[in-house]
């Protein structure tokens, strides 16, 4: 991976290494200048081995998450790269037809390049040291039936190769690895690719029937070779095909002297030849400058896609992992605060005997850096392990498309390690500064710090700064339409005011509760309300993160300052179990006495669970909405067919081939043009983008039930829009994927429409130019509607089929949409249609199965993200462990006293377990409630899929799972310290200091 968030990874690594060196230098300086301080810090490490292990676990988690994100990116990058190399083999560039400067991204099937161009090109490149092969090719999609096994494939790529040129591209080989001379193949002989051979269960000698222009041709499998471009494998997860001599395919397709493309192999191997791609592409374009043919650096483009995908995944994992990283930082802060509390008396003594405040900080920095160096190493290594597990899961989801090979690059590991170190080091610096500000007498006596005037002044300063920054952000965000600035600013204002009021002695509970409540209401206001009160703003994925942080912070403040009421309620429940009442009493009292520590732990659980619940709720609702009745636009089956064997009358052909004519209620046709052949832009824009196009017949327009989420002004109903489309060949509707969205890839090559957003129900008609880059034919159409995102199987732009034919001529595929007679099973009907029309290469799928498969894939991916985000739970659980272990030490004397006055061992243990469970429960419940509320807000808003009118599904199962797992894990984590507390020897504990 070369870039992340647009920053080159090498640059990122260089900066991080510099910062890492700075961290080491600071620690080294402490060692050099204050060796005693350094030793005092480092010696603490071995004092409590169990606690040290927990600290290392706590500190490593941020690094683990960063490392896992980067390694997942590496894995995807490497896997796609490997697949590109495997897929393209020696092919580095291909020739495409292009009328203008914009090029189709892939070679076209069929016949589009005169054969003499290949000869001219070979001659021109003959002396080019960077090129070692030129291969003329024909590529045609054909249906194939294996006569022996009766298995069929609706669309395999029939590849015609020039036998004389194929050797430069590695040639063809049989399963024994022996080279095959294409020129010597019998007249009907073919070399079948491995994938179609598996699908057809074909062996050498099998006879296959292929249909070309509705005529059957008998071919014989002479050999089976690995999949490659030579055997028609042209894309990830494609069906592949078979190879024949060029002359033979030209004869079969009745396209003499025509090619589909010309492949070029650069000098060097499969991987290193690509370095000449830019030069070779320029050389080819120069050689063909007076023709409409241009070179596309196919392999380089594939590698760029791999890079982009890897980077995209890292971005997504980092963004979704941000909650866990934030929780990890909280944990580091908590750990060092607790360490400081533990060592308060000795720190007081150290100050008393002459250590300065900054030297106390240095002591912590030395100790922290030692933990940091080890834990970041462990975290980086474990992150690789986590990424490899995720790679395994990804492989099970998308392994059909390409192999996922777990990979970790040194660069990513260095970035993860150094980033982990730097983040942790900064947190340690801040927390060590904070803990060093103790008063000597109070520290020595281990009693709480008095509320000093200076502290009040500090709160006043914080409050004023918060208020000012908040006001500025609010004004800036409101005027600039920036949701992040506006809502963050609006949140800082009440919090700043609360701090100011506190500094003047206002009671904490009402002040903080009201401020937090205002923040909660602000972030949970339904869009319909906030839209009328506040200026219009918009935000991207960062709003997910900031809303979580703000909501959880406010929720935790409310819990902590009102916990007495909550815990009194628990206490009332406890009255029914009077035997456990004392245990309950202490379990409640301790966390309430340390609001900071308890609040941070609650916030950790709350943050993680909030993100998980949000994700689960959004996934459940998206899946539910997209799986609804509108998904198929009123159709039950979609068939796809290559253009090689056209069907003039679908229903008639179906019945002529033995299918029951009563099967169908309606059928319609849509000619589909792949986005690689489509250029699209706003009429007044300069930059062409890509998008797919459907040319639909009258039946499609009249029989479809495709809802629109936005209609152009002047159209009263969805039907009015469709009727207008039927009447005017220059009108169009487009799917909601074309709407602008702030996401991970703002510079996407895909077309986005201007003048309309997801929130709009009406729009001004928008002029959009569409073009075929091969011919340069361009047309301007007017978009008058946006298809509702619930009809998600309807994607691309929809136009009259004549308009599509006028611009592109032949489409890439013909889709038939079928509505079945009542009571007909869609899966059975799809099989019947496919079987009846096998000669035409028709592939039929029930829309329901398409929807289910898509949704399953969506769910799997989201669950993978959820699993990644759940790593944060480990942080929360580790925090509980640290607190519980620490509590046993802190309360040892009190435990002795409790045992002396009659607490049984089981009561002491129960008290610890109840305490941990209560903290977990408060965190988990607050996260769940906030997550559900925000998800509800989002999902029922106007701009969500389907306009928010589809109700709201609560992901009960996932929620129950998160709660149960969190509780069980926290119980498990508290169990050992609870047991330890229960077995504290009373007499010794009473005199423990």
């Amino acid at each position, binding site marked *: 991976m070369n870039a992340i968030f647009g920053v080159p990874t090498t640059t990122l690594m260089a900066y991080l290494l510099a910062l890492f060196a700075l961290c080491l230098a600071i620690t080294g300086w402490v060692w050099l200048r204050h060796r005693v301080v350094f030793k005092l810090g480092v010696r603490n490490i071995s004092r409590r081995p169990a606690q040290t292990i927990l600290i290392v676990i706590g500190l490593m988690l941020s690094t683990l998450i960063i490392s896992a994100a980067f390694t997942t990116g590496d894995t995807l990058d490497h896997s796609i790269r490997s697949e590109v190399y495997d897929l393209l083999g020696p092919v580095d560039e291909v020739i495409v037809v292009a009328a203008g400067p914009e090029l189709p991204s892939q070679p076209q099937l069929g016949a589009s390049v005169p054969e003499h161009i290949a000869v001219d090109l070979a001659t021109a490149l003959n002396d080019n040291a960077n090129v070692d092969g030129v291969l003329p090719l024909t590529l045609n999609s054909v249906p194939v039936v294996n006569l022996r096994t009766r298995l069929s494939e609706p669309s395999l790529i029939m590849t015609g190769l020039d036998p004389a040129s194929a050797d430069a591209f590695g040639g063809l080989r049989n399963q024994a690895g022996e080279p095959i001379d294409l020129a010597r193949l019998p007249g009907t002989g073919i070399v079948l690719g491995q994938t179609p051979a598996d699908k057809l269960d074909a062996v050498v000698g099998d006879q296959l029937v292929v249909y070309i222009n509705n005529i059957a041709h008998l071919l014989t499998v002479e050999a089976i070779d690995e999949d490659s471009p030579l055997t028609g494998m042209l894309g990830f997860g494609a069906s592949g095909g078979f190879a024949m001599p060029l002359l033979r395919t030209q004869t079969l397709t009745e396209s003499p002297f025509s090619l589909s493309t010309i492949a070029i192999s650069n000098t060097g191997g499969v991987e290193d030849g690509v370095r000449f791609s830019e030069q070779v592409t320029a050389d080819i374009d120069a050689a063909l400058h007076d023709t409409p043919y241009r070179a596309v650096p196919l392999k380089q483009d594939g590698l760029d896609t791999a890079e982009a995908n890897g980077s995209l995944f890292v971005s997504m994992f980092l963004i979704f992992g941000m909650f866990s990283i934030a929780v990890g930082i909280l944990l580091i802060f908590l750990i060092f605060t607790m360490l400081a509390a533990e060592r308060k008396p000795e720190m007081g003594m150290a100050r008393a005997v002459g250590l300065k405040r900054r030297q106390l900080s240095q002591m912590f920095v030395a100790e922290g850096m030692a933990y940091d160096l080890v834990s970041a190493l462990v975290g980086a290594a474990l992150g690789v392990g986590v990424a490899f597990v995720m790679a395994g899961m990804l492989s099970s989801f998308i392994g059909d498309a390409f192999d996922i090979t777990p990979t970790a690059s040194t660069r990513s590991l260095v970035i993860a390690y150094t980033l982990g170190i730097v983040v942790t080091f900064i947190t340690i610096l801040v927390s060590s500064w904070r803990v060093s500000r103790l008063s000597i007498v109070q520290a020595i006596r281990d*009693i709480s710090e008095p509320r000093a005037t200076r502290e009040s002044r500090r709160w006043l300063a914080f409050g004023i700064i918060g208020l000012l920054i908040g006001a500025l952000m609010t004004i800036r965000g409101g005027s600039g339409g920036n949701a992040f600035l506006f809502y963050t600013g609006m949140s800082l204002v009440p919090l700043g005011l609360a701090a100011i009021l506190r500094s003047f002695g206002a009671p904490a509970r009402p002040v903080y509760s009201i401020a937090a409540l205002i923040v909660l209401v602000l972030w949970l206001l339904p869009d319909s309300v906030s839209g009328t009160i506040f200026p219009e703003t918009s935000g991207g994925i960062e709003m997910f993160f900031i809303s979580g942080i703000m909501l959880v912070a406010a929720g935790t403040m409310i819990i902590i300052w009102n916990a007495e009421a909550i815990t009194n309620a628990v206490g009332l429940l406890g009255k029914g179990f*009077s035997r456990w009442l004392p245990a309950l009493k202490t379990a409640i009292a*301790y966390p309430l006495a340390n609001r900071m520590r308890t609040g941070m732990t609650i916030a950790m659980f709350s943050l993680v669970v909030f993100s998980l619940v949000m994700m689960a709720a959004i996934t459940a609702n998206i899946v539910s909405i997209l799986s609804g009745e509108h998904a198929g636009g009123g159709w039950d089956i979609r068939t796809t067919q290559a253009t090689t064997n056209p069907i003039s009358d679908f229903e008639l052909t179906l019945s002529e081939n033995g299918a029951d004519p009563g099967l169908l209620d309606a059928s319609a046709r849509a000619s589909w043009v792949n986005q690689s052949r489509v250029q699209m832009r706003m009429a007044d824009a300069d930059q062409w983008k890509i998008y797919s196009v459907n040319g639909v017949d009258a039946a499609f327009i009249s029989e479809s039930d495709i809802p629109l989420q936005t209609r152009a002004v002047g159209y009263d109903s969805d039907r009015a829009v469709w009727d207008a489309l039927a009447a005017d060949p220059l009108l169009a509707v487009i799917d909601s994927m074309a709407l602008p969205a702030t996401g991970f890839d703002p510079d996407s090559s895909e077309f986005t429409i201007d003048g309309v957003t997801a929130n709009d129900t009406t729009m001004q008609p928008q002029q959009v130019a569409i073009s075929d880059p091969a011919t340069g034919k361009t047309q301007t159409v007017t978009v008058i509607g946006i298809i509702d995102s619930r009809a998600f199987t309807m994607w691309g732009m929809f136009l009259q089929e004549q308009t599509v034919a006028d611009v592109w001529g032949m489409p890439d595929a013909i889709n038939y949409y079928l509505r079945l007679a009542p009571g007909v099973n869609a899966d059975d009907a799809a099989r019947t249609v496919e079987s009846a029309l096998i000669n035409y290469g028709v592939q039929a799928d029930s829309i329901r199965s398409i929807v289910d498969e898509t949704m399953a894939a969506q769910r799997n991916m989201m669950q993978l993200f959820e699993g990644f985000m759940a790593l944060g739970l480990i942080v929360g659980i580790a925090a509980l462990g640290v607190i519980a272990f620490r509590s046993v030490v802190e309360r040892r004397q009190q435990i002795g006293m*409790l045992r002396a006055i*009659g607490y049984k061992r089981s009561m002491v243990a129960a008290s610890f377990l109840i305490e941990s469970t209560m903290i977990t429960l408060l965190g988990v419940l607050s996260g769940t409630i906030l997550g559900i509320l925000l998800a509800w807000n989002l999902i029922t808003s106007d701009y969500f899929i389907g306009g928010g009118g589809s109700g709201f599904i609560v992901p009960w199962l996932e929620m129950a799972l998160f709660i149960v797992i969190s509780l069980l894990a926290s119980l498990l984590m508290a169990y050992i310290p609870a047991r330890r507390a229960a077995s504290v020897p009373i*007499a010794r504990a009473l005199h423990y200091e």
Partner: protein
Amino acid sequence: MLGRRRHDTEDGQSIPAGVDLPIIAARGVLKTYNTGKLSVPALRGVDLTINRGEMVAIMGPSGCGKTTLLNCLSGLDTIDEGEILISGQDLASLSDDARTDFRAREMGFIFQFYNLLPVLSAVENVELPLLVSGTKPRAARERAIAALGQVGLTEWADHRPAELSGGQRQRVTIARALVNEPAIVWGDEPTGDLDSQNAYEIVALMRELNLRNGQTFVLVTHDPDIGATCDRIIRMHDGAIISDGATCPIDEQLVEYRVAAPELVGGNLDGGTR
């Protein structure tokens, strides 16, 4: 006087005045601490009886085994050899849970550093032993407030230990020790962390309660003035009892305390100094 009052036995039988009953009996108690390579004998065959209603001071230099003896007698620690009977019950023969129940029912504890739960208010600290022994929360709260009243801290019931002075904290500890009306109250340096004024007040209070309630007090202390307040002083050296004898008559001591703090003994017990 204490030794001449009537007492009820565990089975409710009345014992005539003038009969001193051994509520605590220890025979041949040995206790050794093993700290790695070292074995430190803490108690070397201690024989001891303490009668119901007595107020006994255990004194001696640091490390002589006073606290260890108190811990072993009260069942907080185990012994290696010998026998300890509390109200005729051999604590060693009880399970940990039964011993804990016995302790909750029969004993109260006062320690030098108070050992109050800092996260609970005074009244909550005091009511804890009652809740542990199964008293209903409402009744526990009433009795805890009454106990705080006995030590003069009614107004401070809702304050946390950090908000109380050392003397007040020790009063809360005493209230907690007495709220269950235990037969024995153990005190380990109960005035060790207090200034002399507060120490006087606490000792006077304990003595007053001892006299008023007839509970047995066993106090480990360095302070000869406290020892002088008790019925008996047991002196220890190197893990063994080297002397065991009565102090001056109780009435004389009370007179001394009345002189020192007339408002606190036998009169107004409310309040306290911070």
